[in-house]
């Protein structure tokens, strides 16, 4: 309908915004944006926020800062790891956000945030002023948490916990591993990105081993005593991969404290060495660097926010969404980031109009597969309360155990549908 008009109008806005930074007073030529929003990070959180800000209010000028030309998703990267999908299938473009929604995409990294003067520093030396800032940087690896694990070690012991090259590297290592080898996964303490992810990874690697290298084993050394959807995973392992996967919890000395890459050995808390033919360290994590550098994180390494709006409780006019924020009972994952972004976007629109935020509702929808035809899910509905974001009692939870094969196959098909829908919603519509 009014799309071409709003696109033209946005082109004018973007120009006036850019010019204002340099000369200061071109607003007379172009209609001024009612508000300028800058978004840092074009993943599930940031890209969703960009789209819904523009849909909810075309008079808001939105600039998305994302260094990568294309976004490679973490969801379904375990499938790529074992050859069930190609990396191209996980690669998302920003064209629709730019052309249909009039989001100004700047393929640069944000390097600084000045929350007092409301200015973002960009890697190319320019600056962007904002009325509201959305910070959606995802996670970073806590390099200091495991002795010997650093930027130089990740080629030999990949984390593959950010999608892309690390996933392909780990895939090549698994392909090169001889039959009868041991694949070791070091699983992190909570909270971390994608709670069921390490266990889905173990499952899909077992699926690959079962066909290609049936004498091989998988050892999970865990910094926790329980994990997400544990019963469902263990049921799946018993049904499909009997004797292939061993899980060592924290209380049985599962926490890895040191890596010895030259010897392909991990050392756990009480000094026990564990040798692997291929080793995947999924390290402890915290909020992305830009958020921590800007002082948006507290002592936990994550960013506290208002549960109604996702505005930082540390810096005003800055909203932190996605894996980087502390969202109470919500898990760190793509779907959570997607619903947080919608709440934050509408809260920002209301704030620019001097209106209170709408009453939020949050959803999390996480699918895991143990094999291509064996899936399950954990669903939760959340509310903002005085105690933060809590899950609604009596709702949500994991898939029922002891379901039949048809039920598991249906959930695996829905896992595929989940990916198709959420990526379509964010990047292609």
């Amino acid at each position, binding site marked *: 309908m009014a799309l071409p008009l709003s696109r033209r109008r946005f082109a004018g806005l973007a120009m006036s915004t850019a010019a204002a930074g340099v000369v200061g007073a071109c607003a007379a030529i172009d209609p001024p944006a009612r508000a300028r929003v800058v978004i840092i990070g074009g993943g599930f959180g940031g890209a969703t926020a960009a789209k*819904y800000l523009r849909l909810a209010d075309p008079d808001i000028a939105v600039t998305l800062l994302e260094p990568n030309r294309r976004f490679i998703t973490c969801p379904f990267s375990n499938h790529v790891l074992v050859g069930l999908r190609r990396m191209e299938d996980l690669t998302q473009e920003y064209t629709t956000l730019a052309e249909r929604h009039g989001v100004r995409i700047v393929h640069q990294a944000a390097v600084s945030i000045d929350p007092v003067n409301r200015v973002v520093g960009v890697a190319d030396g320019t600056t962007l002023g904002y009325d509201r800032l959305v910070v959606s940087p995802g996670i970073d690896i806590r390099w200091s948490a495991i002795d010997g694990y650093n930027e130089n070690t990740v080629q030999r012991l990949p984390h593959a916990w950010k999608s892309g090259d690390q996933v392909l590297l780990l895939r090549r290592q698994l392909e090169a591993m001889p039959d009868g080898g041991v694949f070791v996964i070091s699983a992190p303490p909570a909270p971390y990105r994608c709670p069921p992810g390490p266990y889905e990874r173990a499952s899909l690697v077992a699926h690959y081993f079962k066909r290609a290298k049936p004498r091989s084993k998988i050892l999970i050394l865990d910094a926790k005593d329980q994990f997400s959807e544990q019963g469902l995973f263990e049921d799946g392992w018993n049904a499909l991969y009997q004797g292939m996967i061993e899980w060592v919890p924290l209380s049985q000395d599962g926490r890895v404290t040191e890596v010895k890459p030259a010897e392909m050995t991990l050392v756990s808390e009480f000094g026990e060495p564990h040798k692997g033919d291929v080793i995947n360290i999924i390290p402890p994590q915290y909020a992305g660097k830009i958020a921590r550098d800007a002082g948006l994180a507290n002592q936990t390494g994550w960013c506290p926010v208002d549960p109604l709006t996702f505005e930082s409780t540390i810096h005003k006019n800055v909203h932190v969404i996605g894996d980087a924020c502390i969202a109470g009972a919500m898990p760190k994952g793509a*779907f959570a980031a*997607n*619903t947080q972004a*919608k*709440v934050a976007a*509408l809260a920002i629109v209301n704030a620019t109009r001097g209106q209170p935020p*709408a*009453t*939020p*509702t*949050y*959803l999390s*929808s996480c699918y895991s597969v143990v094999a291509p035809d064996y899936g399950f*899910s954990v*669903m*939760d*509905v959340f*509310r903002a*309360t*005085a*105690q933060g974001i*809590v899950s*609604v*009692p*009596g*709702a*949500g*939870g994991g*898939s029922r155990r002891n379901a039949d094969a048809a*039920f598991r196959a*249906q*959930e695996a*098909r*829905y896992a*595929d*549908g*989940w*990916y*198709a*829908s*959420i990526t*379509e*919603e964010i990047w292609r*519509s």
Partner: protein
Amino acid sequence: MLLAAALALSPSPETRAQNADPRLLSLSCAGCHGPSGHSPGTIPSLYGRTAGSIADTMRAFRADRLPSTVMGRIAKGYNDAEIDALAQEIAASWK
């Protein structure tokens, strides 16, 4: 303070003081059912349905009268007013 405590302790969604915003309710659905309820994959689309049919289906899921993989778990998170509001929002805006 009292209100906050009541909110936090409310045993069921029916007794909550504030219902969620209808737009945010419907946008929650889009993550799985696709943009404006147009699902490109295996999950059923939601566009083009009447408010009555959406609300009835949600209530049937909530009461476990209709078998489901996930919708029973999700529908239990919303009260009657919210189910009606999201059904009306979807019927009105998802064409």
